[in-house]
């Protein structure tokens, strides 16, 4: 639990967090536009800026009190920077040893095993300047883990990477967060990273913390800042099933089954499915004779007011998860949709998050 109220002025920018309590378990994402104060808040939380003022405690331990500040090196945190910030005068192994030498001797996983886990075992004796962007971040993550942090901070670690490396690292970060149990504070301005990783979202704007809520809460409200770019999105949780003879792989829970096609079947570890509301349409009767594979019975829960002639309909699935559909206000009137009504959701396209 991070609890406090921090202020920090950087040039003309003022961070004025307001009082906050952030549950630190799983991945907590700091989300906001660039310039909203995410990085500044993270610097204040980690003690990297000596001009920080206010109060902060971590699990009851005092980190900041007025102008007094527990030095960063005594906070037991790990930090993965946007640019990795690897030491250029040390090899990959040297960078990892730097962390290990200064970490408490608690006998956690060794250098070799952590390097192997993040996929850089074969790069250990290389010069860090020869690494690709993705490899650099893997080293940075390994380095942070080897210092045995109680809180792992990541400041837009993927923003400089290509889409393929981004995908691979998202998976790695997600898996490591689960395997190690270390709470993660993760900064991003990309909704897709939030949807992929977050258990909790801290929304920031204009140097303030606007709202702290679970991912589920964040996705359930129609005005969520996560929807600014692509419109409303649903994230369904579930597990992958066995691929059948037709090449279709089921994903979902006991009550809800969504069929995936193509190479999706290879992504065995995926647990989240991302569905844009505009890719979901509604029918009052069970559709027959249509090419769309996935149609699921739903209960209309809420209909948000029309915006530019379109409405977002929140539908409850059989397993209790929420699926958003975006339809025209005209269709809504035609179908006489009202909360409480039963309908069928037709899903045109899904994206497996991994």
């Amino acid at each position, binding site marked *: 639990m991070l609890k406090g109220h921090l202020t920090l002025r950087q040039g003309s920018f003022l961070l004025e967090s307001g009082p906050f309590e952030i549950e630190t378990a799983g991945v907590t994402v700091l989300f906001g536009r660039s310039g909203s104060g995410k990085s500044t808040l993270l610097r204040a939380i980690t003690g*990297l800026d000596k001009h920080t003022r206010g109060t902060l405690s971590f699990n009851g331990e005092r980190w900041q009190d007025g102008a007094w500040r527990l030095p960063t090196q005594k906070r*037991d945190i*790990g930090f993965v920077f946007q*640019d990795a*910030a*690897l*030491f*250029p*005068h040390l090899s990959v192994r040297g960078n990892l040893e730097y962390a290990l030498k200064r970490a408490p001797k608690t006998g956690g996983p060794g250098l070799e095993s952590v390097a192997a886990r993040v996929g850089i075992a074969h790069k250990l004796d290389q010069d860090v300047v020869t690494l690709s962007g993705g490899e650099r971040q893997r080293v940075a993550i390994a380095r942070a883990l080897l210092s045995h942090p109680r809180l792992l901070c990541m400041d837009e670690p993927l923003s400089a990477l290509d889409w393929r490396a981004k995908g691979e690292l998202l998976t790695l970060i997600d898996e490591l967060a689960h395997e190690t149990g270390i709470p993660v504070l993760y900064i991003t301005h990309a909704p897709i990273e939030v949807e992929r990783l977050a258990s909790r979202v801290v929304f920031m704007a204009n140097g303030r913390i606007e709202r702290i809520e679970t991912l589920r809460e964040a996705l359930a409200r129609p005005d969520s800042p996560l929807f600014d770019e692509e419109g409303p999105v649903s994230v369904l949780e579930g597990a992958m099933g066995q691929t059948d003879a037709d090449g279709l792989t089921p994903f979902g829970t006991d009550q809800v089954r969504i069929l995936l096609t193509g190479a999706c079947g290879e992504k065995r570890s995926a647990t989240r499915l991302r569905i844009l509301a505009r890719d979901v349409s509604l029918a009052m009767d069970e559709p027959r004779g249509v090419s769309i594979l996935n149609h699921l019975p739903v209960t209309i829960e809420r209909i948000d007011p029309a915006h530019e002639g379109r409405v977002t309909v929140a539908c409850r699935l059989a397993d209790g998860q929420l699926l958003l559909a975006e339809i025209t206000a005209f269709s809504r009137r035609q179908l006489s949709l009202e909360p409480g009504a039963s309908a069928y959701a037709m899903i045109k396209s899904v994206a497996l998050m991994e």
Partner: protein
Amino acid sequence: MLGLTPGEWQAIWLTAKLAGLTTLILLVLSAPLAWWLAHTQSRLGDITAALVALPLVLPPTVIGFYLLIVLGPQGFVGGRLEDMGLHHLAFSFEGILIGSVVYSLPFAVQPLREAFSAIPPRLLDAAATLRASGPDRFFSVVLPLARGGMLTAIVITFAHTVGEFGVIAMLGGNIAGETRVVSIAIYDHSQAMEYAEAHRLSAILLGFSFVTLFLFYAINRRAMSPLKP
């Protein structure tokens, strides 16, 4: 050896001692000063930077003149020393050592400052998150990354002190074994029309300076690794 007289060996040894001690003192003094200059945003930084750079543009005679006034028996520092029953610092090795430190200060501070400025602050943040304390960060990150600048500072400070003349001429008084460094001995020999001696010492200085600079450029080219984060 080399056909040098004991007096000339003495001048060479004295010069090496002066340059060596000057370099050592300046490294210790300049490192924190250069670090502060590289990171401060205050007006005081500009003033200090200007003060540090003064010896670059001032005639050495000006520095020598003021130091003579300050360190001499009636001077602020020299006078206090005399009052304490100690000896004032003009015309002594300690005096020209102080003179050399002042005179060569920008040659030590400038390369260190540039080297420190080139170190991305992120790396120090990263070291702090890896539990490195302030001094630990300085020795484990700053110094290794500033090694090119350190080498430059050491070589240039040493060579510049070896080549110093004006300050020592004003402050030193040409005393064998105490203040008669090679450059002063050359001046002395040439004034006394002892051309052979002047030639010998001059050739040694010329050779030393060239070899130093040559080694410096050769080593620097190899030692400088890219500092890209």
